């Protein structure tokens, strides 16, 4: 009977022990089965005689006796392993020195049940809050032309990017454009009696590569830390442009243009699966414009092929500003290294 009571006591301890331990962070799961490397014991703080006590709360470096690791029974499974008894890193008590007063030491002792802190909450270098490797990014955005004072395009843009590493990605992009004439387009015609030669853009697509060389974090009024990164983009694709005839009676035509692009995007991390993006991108192509003397030869002007043959080419840098959100899949991630 005594033997059976003992076995029940053991079972009681086995069941209760995991519930008494502090909650485990997700990274600790990756540590399962691994032993912690012994770390040197923290050096005791140098005594500071006659130093006024600081106003802010001190970090408590001692642990109540009830929670000393050497008094806990070791777990059978190894989960939640706090380390073996006697590990130097777990010895949080400060050696007494002559300068330490008893009153100060008593002040630091916390009663059981009150909140406590420890060095485990503070790390010197905080981990990046967002991992991208082997994740898929869906990036819808809207854009606006910023370097044309005659015709402006609104852009609906969608990108799908796959991150091969945390800094390198490959992806595809599709664009749809809506044109908007600006004030100068009307003024030049009305004031100076000159009709601008302008093309509009219909749609585009590209294959892009992205590289993230810049990582940053900033504080908003010293209250909250926000992480962001900057990525560079380079790619090649196509754009379809369409001539806007100066004489509406003449036929228009479209051009399919090879379009390399370069860009810069700022990304702010909002959640594990959402980021906010602001970017600039330059789409570079040689566009074909209506000949300024097209109307002089009516026979040729009415023929699309003849007009295309007489079209003049010009290098265009179509710079756009875009803003959008990115949605990441899978929606969560996990570190597999020590904290």
């Amino acid at each position: 009977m005594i033997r059976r009571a003992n076995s029940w006591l053991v079972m009681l301890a086995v069941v209760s022990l995991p519930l008494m331990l502090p909650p485990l962070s997700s990274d600790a799961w990756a540590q399962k089965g691994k032993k912690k490397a012994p770390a040197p014991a923290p050096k005791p703080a140098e005594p500071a005689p006659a130093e006024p006590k600081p106003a802010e709360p001190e970090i408590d470096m001692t642990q109540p006796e009830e929670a000393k690791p050497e008094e806990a029974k070791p777990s059978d499974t190894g989960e939640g392993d706090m380390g073996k008894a006697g590990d130097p890193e777990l010895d949080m008590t400060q050696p007494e020195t002559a300068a330490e007063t008893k009153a100060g030491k008593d002040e630091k002792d916390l009663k059981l049940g009150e909140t406590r802190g420890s060095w485990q909450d503070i790390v010197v270098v905080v981990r990046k809050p967002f991992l991208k490797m082997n994740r898929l990014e869906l990036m819808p955005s809207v854009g606006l032309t910023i370097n044309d004072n005659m015709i402006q395009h609104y852009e609906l843009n969608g990108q799908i990017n796959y991150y091969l590493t945390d800094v390198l990605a490959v992806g595809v992009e599709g664009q749809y454009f809506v044109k908007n004439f600006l004030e100068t387009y009307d003024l030049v015609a009305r004031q100076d009696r000159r009709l601008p030669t302008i093309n509009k853009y219909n749609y585009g697509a590209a294959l892009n590569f992205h590289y993230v060389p810049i990582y940053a974090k900033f504080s908003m009024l010293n209250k909250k830390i926000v992480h962001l990164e900057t990525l560079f983009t380079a790619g090649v694709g196509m754009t379809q442009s369409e001539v806007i005839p100066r004489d509406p009676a003449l036929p228009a035509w479209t051009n399919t243009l090879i379009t390399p692009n370069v860009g810069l995007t700022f990304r702010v991390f909002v959640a594990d699966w959402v980021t906010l993006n602001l970017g600039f991108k330059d789409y570079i192509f040689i566009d074909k414009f209506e000949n300024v003397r097209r109307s002089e030869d009516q026979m040729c002007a009415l023929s699309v092929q003849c007009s295309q043959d007489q079209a003049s080419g010009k290098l265009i840098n179509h710079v756009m500003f875009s803003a959008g959100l990115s949605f990441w899949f899978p929606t969560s991630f996990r570190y597999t290294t020590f904290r």
Partner: protein
Amino acid sequence: MLKRSGITLLAAAIAVAIVVGLAGSAFARKSPLEGQPDVRHKYELRQLRFEVAPTFEATVQADYKHTISGGIKLEYHLSDSLSFGGLIFLGTGLNTQLTDAVSGSLKDTEEPNNPTPTRKEFEDHLNTMPVHGGAGVTFTPWFGKISLFSKLYLAFDVYLSGGFGFANLENKYKNTNPGGGPNDYCGKQKDGTITDANGQTQDVFNDPRNDCPYNSGFQPGVQVGAGMHVFINKWIALDVSFRDYFFKDNPSGQDFNADLIVDDKDPRFLGHLFVGVGVSLFLPARVKISR
């Protein structure tokens, strides 16, 4: 009996486990950093420092004349987030591609029954911005660090500013209407007439091409901007900014509202966007460190 005591002990073990589990929340670790500033031992790179920033500014997406200017920005930072100051720039105008294209297609002389302006009329009506500037308040809510290729670490901040803005505009227009001397200015034509040498009153507002452009002189307004400092060391920073100056303007100097007269109804409240690059020097060179 043994079975009953075993069941009782098991139930007791489960009850204890539940109680301990609930009480375990009291052992939940509260971060000792809660309520503390996010950044300790922060270099107060702006607090109580004077900023002198020689800066180069240029217009973005100007219609007829680019303005290329150099100047200086002076700020005094009351705290790490708030400062006040002023800026002034001197510049020159350059033709845009549109201006060159239009000017190159115009003729040198007027044609009968053709309202197209001559090349000189078109170019003389355009204005330039030889002086512009402003004064106001700057708010710096964001500061942080950037890492370049995981090798170089720099402090940076982002600021927003706004306040009074102004520009002094000029054009090359000279009134050459008959009866008017070569030095007549726009103010003499406000009533729409001019008296010639014979004492006859003529209505000069019959051709917008030779009207006064009404786009010169001192123009008050507002300016708003945003920028970024990237600190090379504790007292020198690279400053990149965008600033928009809003004031009444008629860049082409021609009839905007289609009433066949160029007068003070044609200028409208327009934005003039500039991009600026400068070097900010923060004085004194020593910097305080926060707690």
